[in-house]
């Protein structure tokens, strides 16, 4: 399989992530959408690393992204719980304090 195929998969996964992020009405889905996007990025990193043979940069990036995702998920869930406590809802459209 060529690089092209991996990139296509990554792109579609990215699109799905975006769609999940913007269409679902639950903060959890927003989180999941972000995870998909990160995963699509990871596929790209690893694939390009493999096909361009550029040392270990791509892999290292991927590892870093995974670490980041872990950290992000932990913090984000903390925020979700807080938001739920504060607003009594997890619908992002109801959480619009930023507007104030």
């Amino acid at each position, binding site marked *: 399989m060529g690089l092209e195929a991996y990139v296509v998969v990554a792109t579609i996964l990215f699109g799905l992530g975006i769609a999940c992020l*913007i269409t679902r009405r639950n903060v959890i889905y927003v989180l999941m959408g972000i995870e998909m996007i990160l995963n699509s990025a990871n596929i790209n990193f690893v694939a390009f690393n493999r096909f361009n043979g550029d040392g270990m940069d791509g892999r290292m990036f991927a590892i870093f992204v995974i670490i980041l995702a872990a950290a992000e998920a932990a913090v984000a869930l903390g925020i979700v719980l807080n938001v739920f406590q504060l607003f009594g809802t997890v619908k*992002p459209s109801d*959480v*619009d304090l*930023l507007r104030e």
Partner: protein
Amino acid sequence: MDLTFNPETDFKWLLAVPLIPLCGYVIQIFFGRFLPRKGDWLLTTGMAVTMAITVWMAFKAIAATQGGEGFFHESLDSDFGFRWLYATEKGATDPLNVTAGILYDGLGAAMLAVVGIVSFFVHLFSTGYMHGDRRYHIFFANISLFTVAMLGLVLSDNILFLFVFWEIMGLMSYLLIGHFSHDPNSHRIKQAAAACKKAFLTTRVGDTCLLVGIMIFYYHFQTFRFTELWEAAQTTVAANGGEYPAWMTAAGLLVFGGTVGKSAQFPLHIWLPDAMEGPTPVSAMIHAATMVAAGVFLLGRTYPLMSPTVLNVVTCFGTVTALFAATIGMTVFDIKGVLAYSTISQLGFMVAGIGTGGLGLIAGLFHMVTHAFFKSCLFLSAGSVIHGCHHEQDMRKMGGLRKKMPLTFLAMLICTLAIAGVPLFAGFYSKDKIIQSAFMKMTHGGLLDGVGLFAYAGLLIAAAMTAFYMFRLIFMTFFGEARDHHVHDHAHESPAPMVVSLLVLATLGMFGGKMWLRDFDLMGAKGTWFEGLTSEIDDGHHGHGSEHEGSVGEAFSIDRMYPGIAITEMNTYVGDSAEHFQESLHAGHTWAMRGSLAVALGGILLAVFIYLLKKADPAKIAAAFGEMYTTVANKYYVDEFVNATVIKLQMVLARTFKWIDENIVDGVVNGTGKINRAFGFMWAWFDSTVVDGVVNGVGAVTNMTGSLVRLFQTGRIQQYASLAFGGLLLLFAWLFLA
């Protein structure tokens, strides 16, 4: 005592002159209220020391002149200066640096002594007059700092530092005029508040002109130092074929603008009468003797830069002011008001005198010196009267006070005689010479000079009026019956410090003129001490030396005032032949003398006739003049005119610009916001149909009433994410499709 000027030590003494009151100020402003007697003794003692130094230095100047030498010292010659803008890297010669030094010449010596003496006595007077004031210590601090600025102005050797001190004086004048605007017990609290602002702003207009003038001179000459400016002007004029370039005329007029503001010349005189809201000692010192004279002093310092056109303008402004203020002075009933207009009028005399050039320059500066003594004495006397009458200022309520306040009356009478131009009293000598100079200008070159004619006639009339209104003041206040018994019964002589100050200043006002005379020659034919300081007396190297050896004629070679600068070649008398010159000198001497004697006498007699003998009712005379009287009594409506035009225009401009700012400039910003709101609507539409997004968004967007915030901020992270994604797509599209 050694009376030769020693640059090594004496410049340090001179530096101490402003520094002593400055230290006093610093102590007073921080600790004054904790000191016994609120610190007045401290500052007054300091001023006594200052006065002693100034007088001592002045004696050195006199001694030098009587030895027949010139007297002109610059501290920078002995490398004694203050590098202002750069202290280390830039040398003193770099045009970017301003090195301030002390210029001590005859004019400076005279003025410094005057300021020292008047300031000390005003301090002394104030210890009595201001007693019990709510802000007593602040008052002393302020007049002290004012004195510092005035002394610094006199001593400064460059025009930029002169400007610096000039403006600091403006600030102190502002604070002192507004002194009573902090006092809840004062019934004129609002007027004082308005007056101080008006004073500062009006003079600020003139000051700005002066600043621009300084800039223009700097641009062409690349220096601020007076001596270098004079030389550069001389070189420039010589290079220009003896003609003044047009820019010098413009710059000269702008510099004169500074004088117009500070010395209260028409049309910027409007602040000075209002400035009488300040305490009387302040009026005496700042608004009679020193600060307003600074404008005249400035003219003296910049005289070699002035082109003939400028000098003509100066003459006209001076004469108009002298006349104009004198007419108003005849109609005013406020005792300080009369003196205020009299001050404006006398300043007009000085300015006009300087404008006539040559002899007039000396005469104008001389008048500045004599006027400082008698006018400060007059003001202090008026203050004494007001103090005695429990802050009553209306002359119509006074009368018959001479028995109640004999010493005040004596002092005031002497000074009135002096200002009226009665021979033997100080004012006569100086005023007479001004008129003589105007006459000479009128007849110079055998032709009738229009400006000279105007000056001669106008100044004579003004002198007559001066004599009239000053005696009117004396008669209304001190003679006749007591008009208001309440005031009269409670009137009393002032305490000792005040009376002492009055009498000393009156003495100076009486003998001041004569003291300047070298040998008590009554008519001053031998020239005065003052001329000795400022002009070359003993030789006739300009070819005019004839039977009038050592006479005023030599005033034309103002060699000692501007060493190395050939003023003769540059002023209005260019082209005069020696014969014409002598003729006009003779004639001027005679005619000026006759004229000024006649008008002084006439004015006094008229005052005696109307106010002492009461042969005519002033009210009827006033009625006879009708509209004319009303106009004059209302100060020619200048204030009203200025309020209705200049001030109004500024306010209209301010409101217009404010409107533009809020509606047009900011309108563009909010308009951008509105466009974005339109995008917001579009987005909302897109959102609700395509992605079925934020239905509430439409409601929210519709609710955005002009608030820019909400246009951009829906607060919904999903919408933000969509926007970001859209932006990303656009970026890609642009990168790969373009």
